[in-house]
């Protein structure tokens, strides 16, 4: 069960982005992307980066939180 390491979004928000294979065609790593917070990660990165519980709180994101918007556009999408 994969969830987003940055915002803890559930699996239905996660996109399988790319798979890296060795010369024999065996799967070495997978890159995922979170549609909720736009985080991208590779599953071979250290747990401090890709495990929500191990990840430092400062580096987590709550998509519901009103983060600063740089140059708020008139018609914000």
């Amino acid at each position, binding site marked *: 069960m994969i969830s987003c390491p940055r915002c803890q979004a559930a699996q239905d928000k996660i996109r399988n982005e790319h798979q890296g294979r060795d010369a024999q065609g065996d799967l070495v790593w997978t890159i995922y*992307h979170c549609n909720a917070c*736009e985080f991208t990660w590779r599953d071979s990165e250290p747990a401090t980066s890709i495990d929500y519980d191990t990840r430092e709180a*400062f580096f987590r994101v709550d998509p519901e939180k009103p983060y600063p918007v740089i*140059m708020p556009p008139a018609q*914000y999408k």
Partner: protein
Amino acid sequence: MQAPGEFTLLSIPAHDMGRHIMAAEKNNVPLKISVMLGNHPAMCMFAATPVGYEESEFAYASQMMGSPLRLTKSGNGMDILADSEIVIEAELMNGVRTFEGPFGEFPGSYSGVRKIPRFKVTAISHRDDPIFENIYIGRGWTEHDTLIGLNTSAPIYAQLKKDFPEVVAVNALYQHGLTGVISVKNRFAGFAKSVAMRALGTPHGTMYLKNLIMVDDDVDPFDLNEVMWALSTRTRADDTIVIPNMPLIPIDPAAEIAGKGHRLIIDATSFMPPDKLGSDSKIVTPPAGPEIDEIAKMIQVLQNGENS
């Protein structure tokens, strides 16, 4: 990268690019860009120099190198360097903002999470075996401080010098100018403060010059021993200025609200009438002249043991 073919790129209203983004979104017209990665060091230097909005970074880089730059047209019609390692052509996704950060930044801290402008890639071109150029950044002193220090100081100096020829030197080496030291010959009492206010209105000063130390023309602002001497001997605590709630880069770790902050001006120049001067002292001027040279020679002879 935010998705295949999409990326975010941070710009703030103080940047030229920020102005372009705001104008494009206000008028709902496309904004095309070309991101050039891996360029001649002169180009990198002037891309990071706070020159005026109407001035050309290409022209500055060309002048410094003493030869014309080789430019060409990107696929989306921009003037680009012909010798960039990698060129990413893209278009602003009007009105879209996406999560980015935290990122390591030059004050030696991480930025917060921001929602920032997003772009759609329209083409990528590169040289064979392209070199991806990057920079080591963090708590100073890093190569970032070395590479950006002088080209931060020089434009502030040039912009001040136009209005105030009494300005001698500008040191904005520290954290991209979050602290600056300016030496100036006081024309009249309080003059250095007027120069400091003008510095806060320069393109770079508007967002970066958080702490300003003003020193006399006999103090080298690049010699911190001299600056500390000036601070120790020529400041009065009630002769400093704090200007609250000014614009400030959004990554100042000390900011209460990202994007705003207080400015500090310390006038460490000597007092002149009508200010009251120090009542019971006189600053020493190092002695010089033929007599001193003679004494120096005698001391040297004594030191060398040639007095027998």
